[in-house]
């Protein structure tokens, strides 16, 4: 490893550790140590399916503690497997932390990681080969929680059912993930969303088929905590400052270089471009995302902050302002055409997470990007019920289906049009 690469990795690791630690400490300050721990414990046995806003359920301190610990588990897994920090791992940690605010808990993600580990061993691979699948595959954490806490078993059988369900889930994820990748050819950034959604269809059908039902309550915090409103902008400014320090006089050209990448999977902006450009891009996405939420008067709650953290993470792995605005425009247009309020839960999350389709705009242009965003909104409002909210990356699922449709048409046209 070169000295320059080592500096990049150390900087990224330092940023992530600082961020996660700051989340825990600030949570303690806002809610108090006792309340935070009490809230955290409550979350471990609470239903986790979409949409369970942990801030509404456990308070700010409990939710932040849970999110940071989920993030730290990701960091430890990356460290143990000996993988260096870069765009995809940065994206994975911010995504895991973000979803630790509405669905992931330390308890419901570990069995899935174990399942992926067993799957890797079965085909004589190292765990690090499947690390990204394991980290993002934790999107099915709610399935583990459902099996453990909503079926109605006593404690020990419940724990065994949850653990076994999680391991089986994780075991199947790599095989599905590879197939799903070919379906959209890398034009849906959240491939594990499509993977987990596909698996979730079967899991949900099985649970319902066995006669079990579960609550469909939505927990959506709609308060206006100044701390939560300022959280993402402050983190974004920190990232921009770090990027400016790292890039010095080249910062602007580094950012411009990031804007030239289509963003198709796997586009590690840290490697393809620079750490400085990736950090500034990540921060700008956070600032513009927050501005959008502020303008449409949506609450800064667990899912929204989690969503913003996710797209900031993907600011180092495929998303930038130039390739994402067309898809967001498409979502906004579809929301208005269908008469939905822009600040209702579905459209808010769709606008944030639709950036999963930004490579379509990056590769094929503005019009396909807007069209993709438009279709995405129509799809995502339906797909959640298909898997019973088991798959936290519901937008990745809808985005994958949308990308597959658009890619099929483009591929058919290009491969069938006579050239000779």
């Amino acid at each position, binding site marked *: 490893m070169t000295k320059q690469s080592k500096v990049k990795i150390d900087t990224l690791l330092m940023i992530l550790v600082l961020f996660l630690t700051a989340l825990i400490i600030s949570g303690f300050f806002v809610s108090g140590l006792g309340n935070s721990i009490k809230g955290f414990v409550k979350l471990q046995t609470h239903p986790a399916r979409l949409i369970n806003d942990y801030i509404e359920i456990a308070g700010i301190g409990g939710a932040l503690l849970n999110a940071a610990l989920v993030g730290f588990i990701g960091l430890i897994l990356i460290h143990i497997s000996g993988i260096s920090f870069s765009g995809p791992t940065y994206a994975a940690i911010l995504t895991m932390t973000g979803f630790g605010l509405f669905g992931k808990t330390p308890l419901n993600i570990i069995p899935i990681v174990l399942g992926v580990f067993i799957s890797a061993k079965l085909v004589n691979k190292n765990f690090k080969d499947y690390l990204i699948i394991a980290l993002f595959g934790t999107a099915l954490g709610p399935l583990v929680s459902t099996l453990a806490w909503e079926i109605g078993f006593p404690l020990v059988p419940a724990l065994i059912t949850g653990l076994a369900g999680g391991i089986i889930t994780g075991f199947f994820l790599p095989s599905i993930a590879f197939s799903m*990748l070919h379906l959209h050819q890398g034009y849906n950034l959240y491939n594990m969303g499509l993977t987990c959604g596909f698996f979730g269809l079967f899991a949900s059908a099985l649970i319902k088929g066995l006669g079990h039902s579960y609550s469909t309550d939505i927990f959506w915090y709609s308060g206006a905590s100044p701390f939560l409103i300022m959280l993402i902008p402050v983190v974004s400014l920190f990232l921009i400052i770090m990027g400016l320090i790292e890039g010095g006089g080249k910062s602007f050209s580094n950012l411009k270089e990031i804007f030239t990448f289509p963003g*198709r999977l*796997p586009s590690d902006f840290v490697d393809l471009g620079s750490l400085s450009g990736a950090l500034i891009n990540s921060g700008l996405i956070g600032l513009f995302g927050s501005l959008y939420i502020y303008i449409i008067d949506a609450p800064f709650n667990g899912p929204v902050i989690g969503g913003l953290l996710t797209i900031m993470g993907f600011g180092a792995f495929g998303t930038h302002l130039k390739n994402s605005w067309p898809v967001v425009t498409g979502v906004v247009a579809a929301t208005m055409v269908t008469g939905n309020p822009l600040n209702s839960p579905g459209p808010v999350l769709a606008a944030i997470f639709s950036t999963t389709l930004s490579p379509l705009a990056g590769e094929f242009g503005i019009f396909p990007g807007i069209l993709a965003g438009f279709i995405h909104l129509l799809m995502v409002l339906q797909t959640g019920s298909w898997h019973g909210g088991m798959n936290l990356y519901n937008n990745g699922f809808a985005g994958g289906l949308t990308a597959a449709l658009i890619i099929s048409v483009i591929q058919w046209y290009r491969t069938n049009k006579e050239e000779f």
Partner: protein
Amino acid sequence: MKRRDFILHLIGEISSYILEGDPSRMVISLHQEKDGLHLCIIDDSEHSDKEIEKMNKALNSRKRPELAGYYGAMTGQDLLGSSRLNLLGWQLKHCDVNRTGSGIKIDLWLGGDSFDSRQFTIPDQEKT
């Protein structure tokens, strides 16, 4: 992945890249040993110094098992859009890109853990 499939995908990705330059001639040569292979691709298209520098950067990027093991599955298969040499770069032992009279020559060396560079024509100072 079976070796035959692996080679087909590698050739698919690198050929796709070369064909984007619309060459009138493309030659592919393969030399296989027990635990490694050397793939050589020659074309007659014009390539700028900047492009060759980019190719070298992508093909000689640091090893990324977490990306190669997952996204590497797209190598030579999902060819809609621009070719991605970095998908190859994560899987290579070594690569050289050199100018020929009218185009370029790309040498790719691949292999497993027991790859023996002495079996191949990797330039002496660069043998791993």
